[in-house]
């Protein structure tokens, strides 16, 4: 698989960052997940943390190769994250169970599969347009669907933060799954929390993604989302992936990875590879090859 990935989470103007983002990939499968812990409840941060780490853990356990049934995996991983949050609350005698939204997606075989609970969103952008997206489990979204509220009015509605499905809490989450969506080169999949999507409408996002690569674009947009909130910014978190031309040798190919290898970013980092180095003779060819490799890596990663 050849793709470009970006993630960031900023605290905004809040006292804590209750958002968690993460991605992990092996040679043939990519997972991206985002969770927004709920501020009104105790330890929203903990819930978000458990959600992302539990889903990642399950992924690393099961996605050695490809996932046989990606949707089943997503449902089951999200449900087990829900159970993990509930047992955390029980273990720690919490008066109220912490809660979090969650959206997770799997990319394999050139298709993207997703599932979500709550109002963190997934967009698939193609050619500047929103090709697919999740539908929030929120009160305002229900009102929009019923035709009694416009999207414009929803962004100012007093109940815009009320959601009816989440992980943690007494009621098991309602989890919606997307359809299997075949990716074309240049398609971008973006997962974000409301701190981001409430400030940056998909139309703007689409136009900009068309012009710039995500690694060049997203850091600025994350900052812009915070600025637009004018001192009242919620936590702003994003993880985004652009599906590259699979023949493009300038983009790193996960085929170069070992069977058992995982690359992750979130709470897990890799240990320095130890072991004594073999006595080596670095030839002129080796040097030229290394330089060529670095040059191509520099060209590949947008600056």
């Amino acid at each position, binding site marked *: 698989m050849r793709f470009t990935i970006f993630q*960031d*989470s900023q*605290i905004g103007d809040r*006292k*804590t*960052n209750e958002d968690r983002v993460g991605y992990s990939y092996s040679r043939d499968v990519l997972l991206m997940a985002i969770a927004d812990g709920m501020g009104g409840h105790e330890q929203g*941060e903990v819930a978000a*943390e458990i959600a992302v780490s539990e889903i990642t853990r399950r992924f690393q356990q099961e996605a050695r190769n490809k996932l046989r049934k990606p949707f089943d995996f997503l449902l089951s991983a999200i449900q087990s994250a829900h159970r993990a949050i509930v047992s955390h609350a029980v273990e720690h005698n919490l008066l109220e169970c912490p809660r979090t939204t969650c959206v997770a997606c799997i990319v394999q075989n050139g298709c993207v599969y997703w599932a979500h609970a709550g109002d963190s969103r997934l967009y698939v952008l193609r050619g500047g347009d929103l090709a697919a997206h999740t539908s929030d489990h929120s009160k305002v979204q229900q009102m929009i669907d019923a035709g009694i509220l416009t999207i414009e009015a929803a962004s100012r509605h007093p109940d815009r933060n009320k959601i009816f499905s989440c992980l943690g809490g007494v009621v098991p989450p309602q989890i919606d799954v997307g359809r299997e969506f075949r990716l074309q080169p240049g398609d971008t999949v973006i997962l974000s929390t409301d701190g981001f999507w409430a400030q940056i409408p998909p139309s703007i996002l689409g136009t900009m993604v068309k012009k710039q690569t995500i*690694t060049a674009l997203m*850091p600025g947009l994350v900052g812009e989302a915070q600025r637009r909130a004018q001192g009242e910014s919620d936590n702003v978190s994003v993880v985004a992936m652009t599906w590259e031309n699979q023949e493009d040798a300038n983009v*790193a190919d996960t085929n170069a990875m070992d069977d058992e290898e995982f*690359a*992750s*970013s*979130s*709470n*897990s*980092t*890799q*240990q*320095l*590879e*130890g*072991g*004594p*180095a*073999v*006595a*080596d*003779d*670095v030839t002129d060819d080796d*040097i*030229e090859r*290394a*330089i060529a*490799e*670095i*040059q191509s*890596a*520099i060209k590949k*990663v*947008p*600056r």
Partner: protein
Amino acid sequence: MPQQANQPLPAGYVLNGYRIEKPLSSGGFSIVYLARDENGTPFAIKEYLPSSLPLRSEGVEVQITDEANLSVFRHGLKCFFEEGRALAMISHPNVVRVENFFRANETCYMVMQYVRGRTLQFHIQRHRHEFTEKFIRRLFLDLMNGLREVHANKLLHLDIKPANIFISMEGRPVLLDFGAARITLSEEAMKLKPMYTAGFAAPEHYRFKPGELGPWSDIYSVGATMYTCIAGTPPLAGDQREEKDRIIPLRSLTRQPYSDDLYAIVDECLSVDWLKRPQTAFDLQKRLNEEPVERKSVAGGFLETINKPLSKLFSR
């Protein structure tokens, strides 16, 4: 700054289209120059030049006469490539960017983005007493975003300290100088002395054994950097602490009150036992994100008040 016995490139020398202005810094493995391209855009160019080998006494070409030295030189070059390769993969606002990489003068050069601003070291010397808890938390939270990206690319920085953290004009911390990053551990490579900065290097760094070093070693250095932000001086060197831990408690060195929580975070990062530190940059980020707990009882405050001037007396 470790000694660099080799001659730097002269000012005005044109290297592959970049005009050298002056050396900015020199370390155990390299010299960094300020240079400009034809458009006048400034870059920081790092020249691979291990200081432990006699390589250039005159001119610009690196000359190696000794066969054994050649092997050491080339092995170190591999490490330089690893640094370049890893940095090339990282595109993150909190990590210095690599723009170009080439071979010349019988050695290699890495062209990096030149960040305008000042090092954290400069700010500590000038403005330490203005550092609020909020500023410190914010700064290190941002910096940890960069460090996470570094670790995710299987690289350890191994030389995090105020002098290697740049604060850009917009206030963005940028992690620089990966000169010590990931050095392969073989007898041959050990001839290229591992770089460390006393006070910032973790205790296990001094032994430099594979398996012991990990993200937690960088976390120690981050802790030491936070300590320095608050105290103005780095903590007692890690190897000495391992023999007998006589580190001066941070709270006895402060002029303004920080939360107990922040002291606890710094203490944890600076644990001699690496298992007691936050294990990853992400763990530290979580700790920094937590709401500071209010300062404790009156008695504690009172004790601190009388302790402070006393220990200051001893420490100076």
